[in-house]
């Protein structure tokens, strides 16, 4: 009895470890190729060709970029707080990677007669966990800016922190409206409901839109990339950083982009559900179905990432007052209205009014 319990636990540990390593490396590789995709999309939008020298079509470009960052001289400013200075990029990276733990990446695989759930932790407060971790990302920015002991870095960090915090509000509010519909914080259940019926985006188009805009702001992407604003203010909170520590900050941003695309796909676009196909009719395919589902999630994510880049290379960044006005005077009222309307409809429906 005792040994049997132990054996099961061991299997669970191995399963989770493999999942963690797999998902972390997948996010890293995707972040790597996001840099490549970004340059390609930028080039194509500007009628150029983009990187095409390293390997066929420039496929090896991210490796070359990474190698370059590694070879650069590592500078830690004399007057900086060494511990915090190093902690900053680590935190940014950590916060970016941790969110992937609660995402359901696919259905249940059947490995050696065991059901393996493609989700690292199916906790019942999944979406709250995501928000908790995402807001920790601000610490990476703040600590980096503070530890550099450079007033411009600090100012950029404050800029970044206030932006991220102000856009978290409408994001949360639009999410509340969604949660009122789903009635659950559990990511797997939210996806499950969407597999059985319509995607949430059909019920919550405005909520999705607000969420999208806020995701842009949370990831410090144009038009909200004021924390960086590399060409008009100074470089941003990572001004004093060099070599791979700078690489970590930039990398964390790309991972954030990936993760927020995954979150959006999961919450609003049915997660790993294959669109236009009734997944329940395909269960005969077994593990292949699960892989197909994973693929469909990744295709959705790729589309979102493309939208991120498309927007970045289309519009200039906002002025700071425009940014704050948009956040506080437009998005928060809109999401409040959205929330109240949703609440009213949910209330009417539960009280037996048929629509």
């Amino acid at each position: 009895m005792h040994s049997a319990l132990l054996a099961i636990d061991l299997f669970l540990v191995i399963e989770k470890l493999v999942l963690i390593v797999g998902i972390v490396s997948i996010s890293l590789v995707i972040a790597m190729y996001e840099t490549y995709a970004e340059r390609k999309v930028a080039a194509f939008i500007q009628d150029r060709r983009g990187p095409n020298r390293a390997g066929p079509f420039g496929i090896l470009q991210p490796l070359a970029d990474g190698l370059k960052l590694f070879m650069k001289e590592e500078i830690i400013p004399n007057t900086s707080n060494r511990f915090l200075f190093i902690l900053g990029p680590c935190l940014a990276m950590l916060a970016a990677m941790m969110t992937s733990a609660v995402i359901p990446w696919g259905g249940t695989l059947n490995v050696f007669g065991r059901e393996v759930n493609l989700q690292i932790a199916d906790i019942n407060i999944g979406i709250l966990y995501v928000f908790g971790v995402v807001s920790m990302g601000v610490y990476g920015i703040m600590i980096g800016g503070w530890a550099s002991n450079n007033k411009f870095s600090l100012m950029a960090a404050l800029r970044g922190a206030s932006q991220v915090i102000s856009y978290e509000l409408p994001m949360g509010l639009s999410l509340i409206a969604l949660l009122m519909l789903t009635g659950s914080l559990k990511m797997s259940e939210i996806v499950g409901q969407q597999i059985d019926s319509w995607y949430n985006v059909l019920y919550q188009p405005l909520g999705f839109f607000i969420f999208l805009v806020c995701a842009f702001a949370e990831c410090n992407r144009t038009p909200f990339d004021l924390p960086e604003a590399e060409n008009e203010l100074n470089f941003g909170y990572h001004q004093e950083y060099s070599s791979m520590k700078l690489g970590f900050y930039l990398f964390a941003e790309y991972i954030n982009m990936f993760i927020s695309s995954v979150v959006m796909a999961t919450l609003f676009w049915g997660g790993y559900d294959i669109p236009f196909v009734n997944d329940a009719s395909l269960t005969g395919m077994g593990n292949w179905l699960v892989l197909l589902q994973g693929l469909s999630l990744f295709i959705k994510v790729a589309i979102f990432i493309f939208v991120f880049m498309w927007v970045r290379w289309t519009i200039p960044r906002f002025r700071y007052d425009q940014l704050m006005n948009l956040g506080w005077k437009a998005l928060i009222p809109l999401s409040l209205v959205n929330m109240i309307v949703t609440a009213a409809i949910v209330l009417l429906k539960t009280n037996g009014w048929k629509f």
Partner: protein
Amino acid sequence: MQALTSRAKPVDRKPMTFLEKLYVWSIFKGMMITLRHLFKKKATISYPEEKRPFSPVFRGLHILNRDEEGRERCTACGLCALACPAEAITMEAAERLPGEENLYREEKYAAKYEINMLRCIFCGLCEEACPKDAVYLSETFAPSNYQRKGFIYGKQDLLIPNPKDNPGEYWKAVGNRKANKEQSN
């Protein structure tokens, strides 16, 4: 004040409406424009593999010419140096010794002939000044170098390959520009 063109329009300074403040519509329009550009023909020319055709009057690096028998044509008269507005050319003359007739066409030749490509403005006046048809500008343009002294081209850099030993290289170095010119003369 009178407008400079008939197309001048007054700037619209009306305060933005709420919908405009959301920027959504204009962002959407902009995104459609960039989407169209995504599929447009790319303007890039992949340089080393693919070269833009030169104009027939393009003036690139100099070449010191030889005659049909492979003898250097330059007689070190110094007219090119005199004509040069940038003072990019220097040379040292020497007298042809008996037995060197197969090397130099005239009795006097340039023992040293240098063009400073950093000074040169590629105006082509040296080519026009030369009475012996010895110097002309080719279609290659100035390559890069790590040091300034690499841009001072001596005779070994400028001389065209010998048409007798190496006709292929010779005609390549002559290039389209020279050939065109000869045709029109």
